[in-house]
């Protein structure tokens, strides 16, 4: 395989994530409404929102510095960068495969969060700072869960390279049904909910400032900045979903050779897998109510315990 091919495939992955991210969030949005008995918006609504926002002027706070302008880019950047590192469509390593492993990917996802949090304070709105503080609370509570999951993964796969990890869960197949695997999945699922700010941790559709976590950070963004932020968070969701389905849960259906047909099949397979995951996510989401702020610690504490149990199971299993 030539550098050009792998590089091209990497770009294809990027395009997949960047292009379909709004669609996935549209699908999730619509299903959520459906479950609640409403008709819901079109699944293409996010694309329309983005187009509208990109066309609008950018209104900025007086106190804002370049940080507030840069933050939306950073929010988009970090999931895109992670996309280059993980197996989205192929199960053979691509150009960015060794530029970072899962641990590094965790750190990379922090870039966007870091700048967005700064930007939230930068605008000078008290709600922004409040949201910043609260997202950081979720953030620092989620981090140990991630690392323990990685420990469990690394005890099983002896590697943190996602391309290798995805092989390990299915070779031998017993791994797939091991308690460690199941528990890792549960813990990671809980982590996705926390990281993407969904119920019961946060309500992305809430509009009461004092109860918001994630959304209050972006209150004072508009126009293209807001568009980038929305797109970025959708991409982050997809990236986490891809890690979940392709690396941890069901590493099947990926292209094993760099030929067009295999790739097309892979695109469809991955799309379906993510949609299934979204369905589960939406069901879970709608069956819980939002937790009080400091109860989130208990929720993530629970995730931590699950992860530790997974890890212990991984250590104890031969």
């Amino acid at each position: 395989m030539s550098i050009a091919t792998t590089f091209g495939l990497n770009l294809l992955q990027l395009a997949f994530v960047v292009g379909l991210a709004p669609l996935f969030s549209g699908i999730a949005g619509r299903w959520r409404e459906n479950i609640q008995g409403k008709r819901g918006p079109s699944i293409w609504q996010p694309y329309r929102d983005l187009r509208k926002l990109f066309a609008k002027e950018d209104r900025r706070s007086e106190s804002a510095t370049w940080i507030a302008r840069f933050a939306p880019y950073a929010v988009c950047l970090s999931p895109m960068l992670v996309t280059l590192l993980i197996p989205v469509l192929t199960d053979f390593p691509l150009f960015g495969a060794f530029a970072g492993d899962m641990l590094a990917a965790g750190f990379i996802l922090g870039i966007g969060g870091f700048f967005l949090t700064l930007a939230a304070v930068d605008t000078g709105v008290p709600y922004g700072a409040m949201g910043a503080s609260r997202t950081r609370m979720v953030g620092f509570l989620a981090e140990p869960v991630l690392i323990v999951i990685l420990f469990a993964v690394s005890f099983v796969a002896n590697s943190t390279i996602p391309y290798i990890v995805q092989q390990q869960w299915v070779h031998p197949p017993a791994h797939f049904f091991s308690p460690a695997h199941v528990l890792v999945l549960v813990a990671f699922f809980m982590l996705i909910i926390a990281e993407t700010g969904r119920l019961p941790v946060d309500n992305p559709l809430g509009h009461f400032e004092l109860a918001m976590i994630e959304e209050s950070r972006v209150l004072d963004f508009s126009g293209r900045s807001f568009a980038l932020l929305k797109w970025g968070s959708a991409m982050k969701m997809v990236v986490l979903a891809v890690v979940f389905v392709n690396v941890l849960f069901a590493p099947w259906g990926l292209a094993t050779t760099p030929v067009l047909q295999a790739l097309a099949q892979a695109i469809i397979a991955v799309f379906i897998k993510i949609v299934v995951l979204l369905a589960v996510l939406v069901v879970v989401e709608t069956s819980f109510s939002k937790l009080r702020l400091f109860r989130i610690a208990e929720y993530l504490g629970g995730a931590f315990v699950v992860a530790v149990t997974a890890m212990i199971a991984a250590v104890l299993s031969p």
Partner: protein
Amino acid sequence: MTWSLPVLGTAHFVPTPFGVFFSSLALIVAVPTALYSIAYLRRYAHEYSIGWFAFGYVLLLVAIVAVFCAADVVSFMIAWEVMTLASCALVAFEWRESRKVRAALLMLAMSELGALAALLAFLLAASPTHSLAFSTIAAHAAALSSTTRTWIVLLSFFGFGVKAGILPFNAWLPRAHPEAPANVSALLSGIILNLGVYGMLLVNLVLVPQDATLFGILAVTVGTLSAITGILYATIDDDLKRMLAFSSIENIGIVVAALGAGATFLSLHRLDLAALGFGAGLWHMGNHSFYKALLFLGAGAVDAAAATRRMNLLGGLAKAMPVTAACFLIGALAIAAIPPLNGFASEWLTLETLLRSAEVGPLAVKLGFVLAGALLALTAALAVTCFVKSYAMTFLGAPRSEAAQEVRRELSAAAGIGMALLAAACVLSGVFPAYMVQLVGSALPGVLHGRLAQALLPPFLSTHSNLPASFLRDFHSLGATIGAGLIPGRSLVLLHRGGTANPVVFAMSSTYLACFLLVLLVLIYVAVRLFAQRHAVREHVWAGGLHPLLPEMTYTATGFSNPVRVIFQAVFNPRTTENTREAVHENFRIAITRRREEVFVADRLATTPLAVATRATAGFLARMHHGRLEGYVLYALCALLIALLAIVR
């Protein structure tokens, strides 16, 4: 340079690669700091002697280099003590301020006790050979009994731990570091802490290489606990410099934990993994030197401009001080382990090293490492919170006091250059990990020498015996070897090899990440420029209909860190003093004064009880000296009787 002393033998200095690594790190930090000092010290010139400062500064640097080059216990201890005295003198540079003198004194006293414990460790190590030369001690270390070894580990770990600022004897650090002038704080956090690490490694890695796991376990445990307590207290602190001081505790904790992981692997005879641990620790230590010095210099610039270090009173300084703000941001990004900066690189390697307990080690080690890893992850996440808060509350948003509003300009160009140099060091050490790994690896002493590069920079182009051919082919085509020409035979990717099932255990290339970031950024930027509305307007912020939004109504640093305070209440165990005499106005309670005070855990658990016990004993002895002669005579009489009855056979 040598000279002879009775009993103590010959004192001499011999530079080793290990010491040279530490000294060059010290000089890299010291030079920009000196540059910064030119501008910074002007504020002291009317009251204090700059000449003495310069003298102390140079003396300190000379002593530091001497410590790193010392080749025997006597010259080591002399250099060490001169270093301690010089650094305390610099902390107490503003000697008219009693608070600063007291801080320096606490530092001096605790360092001294630590140094004496370390000295005892040296003496124990020297006891079989009756020679104080390091080479002799190292050559005959095998003759030491296991009890002696245990004592050496404990004494050297906690003795040098005082200087390194790890629990439980680091109460001096959050007092002394903030009180020093900022350029001294930069040296203290950037260099002096490294000396403690050097001492620990000197004893436990160079002189008496441990085959017992004690050092490793101890270092991982204490390091992790230091890291988490350090960052917890840093996160809730309002004082910019004290926050940085607590964060130094955190970072050195991470360093020590990494070194402990290395030592544990060493005791399990996995030299490659041991090299990873020690390398990660030393690299993180160097990185910490860079960014902590940078951050302290930035904090000093803020302090000098706004005359306060309280984040609650700062805010919005980025506009008046763009250079400081930019440099501080780089420091904050680095310390918060944001890729592709240096803090990320070394912290990543540290965590990866802990993950390697998957490969070896008994179950207890595995579980311990998992807990340590989880706590370090929490630490890293809290560090993000801490530095988001401190950067945002200092430089962004609205100024929350008049002093902060009136800041107009930077400290000076020289200060800016000093900070920029350190920022550049942060970026370079992060973006070129392969170079750093080589540098650090070549500094590792003894059996570990060169192992780090072997473990992380496999020469793909020459030897690839145990890798599957298909994988190698892929790897080549992946372009991971781009940059191999820069360091012959080396790539820009850090990569740890495994077996056939897992050819790559972990890999990372912050060089690539940096390139990707830049390329993607340009792509997004261009796309947005091409397709988006470019018009932008500035407006007042919407604040629930309030207008204007007064500075005091915005979110404060204390508010920002409140979740941490609430969640980790058990650790902080704050003392709440409620003022019951609240003001009453027309039958309404209008004010309840409530003060919550978080006392540093090391103070609570170690320093205060020890100080109280010492003072109580001293008070008891003092009551002996009641001034009446009859009592004194009775003491003598009793002593006489006891001596006569006990001695006469």
